[in-house]
């Protein structure tokens, strides 16, 4: 069966999504177990696949039995093996953690919600595993369409934010499609490896350069890279907790994976870094992205919205790291995909727990939370110090690689931006801790000296256990960073890049 892992990763969630949608009409109680089972199979297969890749190198899986440039093929190497494992584990943990909040927020529509949830994971896993440029577009649209639905379920400004996201997302996806069309008209192929083999003769062509630019801009829109980020904060803030803790960790990270795949596989580092010579301006753009993300986050008085601006800054980290044009920076960017997905999951799950109990994430709602929800806040602290970049959590190590990459490339602006953003994160999170530490004052007016601290009112165990697991993974990944870099990421980057 292990030969079929690449297909199982995508097919099992797809089939289960269909079964869930049928179960939604028959008996709603079946939806959750099927979701968890499907995501567990996907997670098991992707981890199994990663270990197979570690043993055997690149695995090619021919869909329909057709040989690659004719048919569609999956290429699983160290890069997408790692990302696949992260995506499927994040999706599984979040599905378990958000059971209660889904039941609380839309009891009538559990079936459709889980269907879209699993379809979205299918789309994201498919994007990562595929080796065909056009297949990637189709899966991109699956992930996007389901994402619009999941985001718009949030009340208030949810639908409007989702509609704006839809406009931007469609432009992004269409740009990518157009870029693929340019590659197709110049090479006649749609297979990534095949295109990469034909392109070297065409490196001087204007059309190939345009294809590169269009694809990049499309992916940047999708990942909310500054200045194309305007859709992200509202969409993620107004989404229901269960959706935002799936979408926020995964979508931007998967799009960064696509960008790295474009740079490394389709266009090769030789073209991206040496022939085009656009690395410097892009890194400067990411420096601005980091500064803007950090500054805009300082302004926010809503915990969830503050975190969305941090995501924009983190996107800047990864784009900058990938475009530094050296091995260390690329290592940092790839490592940060995994780390940032897990950190973001950790803090968003914690916010989900808070919203579940307190019904809001404005700073005023957070008072007294340390006493009220000590376990949730404990995990939140671990996520926060990882985002700040304190050892031994994993956030420190990827940041360290990024900074070394910046020094090696002689790009001190990027280094300063990373340090600045870390400092701002310290300010942001300690401000939140401070608010959460003190009791609300307004409640005690009538009581005089007789102060009753609020009783402990912690989120249910099903929400806490996944949160603890994520927090533990953050530390574990931090401790095993050396192994991950030496055994996985080292092989994910082509030898040509030094």
């Amino acid at each position, binding site marked *: 069966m292990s030969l079929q892992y690449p297909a199982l990763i995508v097919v099992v969630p797809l089939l289960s999504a269909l079964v869930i949608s049928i179960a939604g009409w028959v008996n709603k109680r079946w939806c959750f177990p099927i979701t968890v089972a499907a995501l567990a199979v996907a997670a098991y297969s992707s981890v199994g696949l990663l270990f197979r890749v570690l043993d055997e190198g690149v695995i090619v899986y021919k869909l329909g039995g057709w040989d690659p440039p004719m048919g569609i093929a999956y290429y699983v190497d160290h890069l997408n093996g790692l990302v696949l494992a992260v995506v499927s584990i994040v999706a599984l943990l979040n599905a378990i953690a958000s059971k209660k909040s889904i039941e609380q927020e839309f009891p009538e529509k559990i079936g459709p919600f889980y269907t879209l949830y699993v379809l979205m994971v299918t789309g994201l896993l498919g994007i990562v595993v595929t080796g065909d440029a056009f297949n990637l577009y189709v899966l991109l*649209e699956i992930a996007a369409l389901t994402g*619009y*639905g999941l985001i718009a379920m949030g009340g208030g400004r949810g639908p409007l934010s989702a*509609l704006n996201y*839809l406009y931007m997302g*469609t*432009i992004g996806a269409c740009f990518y499609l*157009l870029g693929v069309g340019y590659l197709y008209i110049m090479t006649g192929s749609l297979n990534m490896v095949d295109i990469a083999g034909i392109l070297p003769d065409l490196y001087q062509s204007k059309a190939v350069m345009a294809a590169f630019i269009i694809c990049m801009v499309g992916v940047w829109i999708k990942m909310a890279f500054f200045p194309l980020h305007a859709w992200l904060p509202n969409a993620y803030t107004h989404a229901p907790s269960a959706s935002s803790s799936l979408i926020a960790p995964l979508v931007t990270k998967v799009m960064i994976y696509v960008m790295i795949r474009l740079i490394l596989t389709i266009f090769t580092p030789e073209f991206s870094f040496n022939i085009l010579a656009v690395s410097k301006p892009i890194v400067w753009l990411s420096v601005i992205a980091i500064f803007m993300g950090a500054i805009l986050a300082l302004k926010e008085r809503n915990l969830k919205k503050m975190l969305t601006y941090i995501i924009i800054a983190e996107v800047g980290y990864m784009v900058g790291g990938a475009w530094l044009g050296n091995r260390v920076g690329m290592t940092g960017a790839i490592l940060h995909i995994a780390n940032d997905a897990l950190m973001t999951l950790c803090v968003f799950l914690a916010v989900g727990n808070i919203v579940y109990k307190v019904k809001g994430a404005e700073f005023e709602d957070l008072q007294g939370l340390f006493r009220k929800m000590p376990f949730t806040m404990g995990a939140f602290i671990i996520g926060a110090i990882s985002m700040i970049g304190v050892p031994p959590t994993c956030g420190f190590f990827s940041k360290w690689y990024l900074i070394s990459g910046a020094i090696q490339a002689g790009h001190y602006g990027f280094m300063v931006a990373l340090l600045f953003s870390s400092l701002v994160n310290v300010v942001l999170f300690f401000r939140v801790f401070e608010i959460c530490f003190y009791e609300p004052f307004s409640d005690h007016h009538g009581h005089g000296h007789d102060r009753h601290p609020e009783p402990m009112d912690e989120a249910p165990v099903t929400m806490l256990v996944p949160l603890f697991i994520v927090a533990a993974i953050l530390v574990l990944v931090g401790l095993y960073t050396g192994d991950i870099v030496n055994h996985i990421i080292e092989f994910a980057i082509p030898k040509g890049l030094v």
Partner: protein
Amino acid sequence: MADLISIIVAKYNYWIYITLMMIGLYAMIAKNNLVKKIVGMNIFQTAIILFYVSIGVKKGATIPILEHGHGGHGHHVVHAADYVNPLPHVLMLTAIVVGVATLGVALALAIRVYNQYNTLEEDEILAQIREE
């Protein structure tokens, strides 16, 4: 001058698709009405579909359905030059479906927005949000 005209004529499919695409993109960014933006989005997608389909055209070739498909028992030799490239058609069938799907979701979202704010003009909606 003659060169320029011959370039324009030889590649007129690209100019048409670029024009349509610019119209769509402009409508998506500049229009105030949310449904007009959806219309712009459709023009934008259709432009890309036209671009792809125009890649497949080949001079002197017919539609990619083999004549004497059955009963020939393989004696009939097929020449690639006689049929247009089928791949762009296949790809665009997918893109059309994606376009329809996006349109459906966009309209559903527009209905939700309209139920909530009683208008589809973006500036009026933003004014309402600011008042809250």
